[in-house]
């Protein structure tokens, strides 16, 4: 079985038609489905949040069978992810994509669980501490994309679970939990 680092690739990664956008509807639907799953799986295990469509990305080409995804195919697969709410375009030109292997509200739930597990119900933390602090190490929150984290925190703020305030430095913000 072929591997990308510690990620196990499925057999069909060596199937040449997998890299050509199929024109027949039924076949194409199945192909798009398989690509969506593979991209989300890979991003989750590798903690990848942003993919540039025009940049190098391990899944976009398979040197073993010498096949590369066309730009049209890349855009088709990511558009399918976007329409399902599992990704968002970061620019109008559809060149960069934010991958949401957890939806924003799921991320919010993960944050709440993290807070409860560590007894931070009434504590104050900086956003950076949540992303890279000792407490988050080993959890899914470790290394989370800042944009995703901020949007998850905003959802919780609207629900009254926390308050966001400006921190001492300009680029860091504080969070006051009140779960």
């Amino acid at each position: 079985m072929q591997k990308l680092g510690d990620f196990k690739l499925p057999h069909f990664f060596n199937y040449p038609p997998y890299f050509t956008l199929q024109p027949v509807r039924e076949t194409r639907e199945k192909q798009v489905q398989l690509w969506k799953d593979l991209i989300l799986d890979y991003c989750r295990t590798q903690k990848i949040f942003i993919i540039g469509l025009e940049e190098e990305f391990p899944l976009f080409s398979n040197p073993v069978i010498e096949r590369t995804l066309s730009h049209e195919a890349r855009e088709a697969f990511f558009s399918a992810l976007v329409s399902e709410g599992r990704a968002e375009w970061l620019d109008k030109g559809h060149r960069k994509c934010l991958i949401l292997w957890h939806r924003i509200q799921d991320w919010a739930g993960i944050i709440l669980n993290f807070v409860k597990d560590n007894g931070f119900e009434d504590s104050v933390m900086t956003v950076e501490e949540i992303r890279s602090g000792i407490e988050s190490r080993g959890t899914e929150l470790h290394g989370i994309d800042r944009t995703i984290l901020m949007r998850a925190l905003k959802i919780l703020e609207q629900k009254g679970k926390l308050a966001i305030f400006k921190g001492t430095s300009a680029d860091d913000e504080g969070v006051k939990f009140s779960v």
Partner: protein
Amino acid sequence: MANFFSKAEVTSSGRPVLLRSEVECHLLSSVDLEPEDHHNFSPLKSGLLILTTHRLLWLPSSSASTPTSAAAIPLPAISHIFSSKKSLKSMFHSPRIRFQVLVSPDGRVFDPGSGSGSGSGLGSRSVVLTAVVRGKGDCDGFLGKFWDSWRARAWETNETSGSGSSSVSGSGTGTGTGTGTGGGLYSSDGSVRMVGVAGILRKEQELWESTDKSLQDAFQDLNALMSKAKEMVMLAEKMRQKLLSGTNSQASATNDEDMGSKEEMQDWLLSVGIISPVTKESAGALYHQQLSRQLADFVRTPLERAGGMINLIDVYCLFNRARGTELISPDDMLQACSLWEKFDVPVMLRKFDSGVMVIQNKSHSDEEVFVRIKSLVTKPEALRSGISPSDAAMTLGIAPAMAKEHLLTAESTGLLCRDVSPDGFRFYINLFPEIDPRDVYLVKDYGICDTWIKAVSTSGLR
């Protein structure tokens, strides 16, 4: 009534089966055939009247009646053709053609071919028939051709040439008769007799000269061509005979290459020769209808050879080659093909999504082709690197363009899927339906995926 007329055979697509060296001359549509005073048969209503050099044929219109009800009157049975009367009354009537037919004692149209009682019964009784032309056809033109054909007595020349088939060439060159008569240097007609190799050479040359002459005559003008048509066919048949006898007598002497070229020549001669092409001149408004039927009869052999489906362009070339002269335009071809929908013929025109048009048997099924394609793409080599349209063309024995259409159709049904890469456009067996999105690593035993993985892994890809 069916007993009154001679039987006329019709092909499955409704074209008359012509006799040897019989040529179609004119057609008229919506013609009634009525007896004038006798009641030998009930009137035949609204059919197609075809004049040939040998017979007058009446076919029921389209598929309304069974083809067995087609009627024929041999031209030798006709004893008189009445010239059309130009009267005030006739201006308001549908045009009529009247003619007298000899009837044998048993109450049927006299048939010279049957031979029964023809000697004694000849002329004992005759019946006047009237053909009422209700269509818009060229009635005067028909009458003129009718006279011409009747007077030409083509059936008689056919009989004489049939009895002495070997003398046809001899009469042309003049040497055949001379050699046998005397022992001197001069033949009976005064020319110097040649013996040995020189004689053979001269004989050959004379033969060629006469062939050349008849070819030149043939192309002088179109009328001459029509009258030469029969000779041309006879020439072709003679050449075939000669080739046949040649291969039999010298089979041991000729090498393989020679045999091959002779077989090719024979094949070619056989494929040439629609003796009586349907022309715009002879059929007029019925042109496309009759052409359509003739085409349906014609395509059967090439269709069979091509495996049930053939490109329209290929048929166009084959058909025009068979016609020799009187070529048809691509537009006429297309019209004739699209008329098949209205007739009960075993072939049909099919247009692929890509715009490619083909002729195929109605019984032809894509399923059969798909089965063959599937067996092709599941071979280990094809599993590894797919197939190109030309691979499929070679295996299926069809043209690459046609093979590509089949592959695209197979793709649209989900049997295949494509791979576009710098290596080109290739097709693979479709594995997508078998992959379970919930567990992409799972491989079902004995499935096509399993077979594919085994084929790929043995190639040392991993």
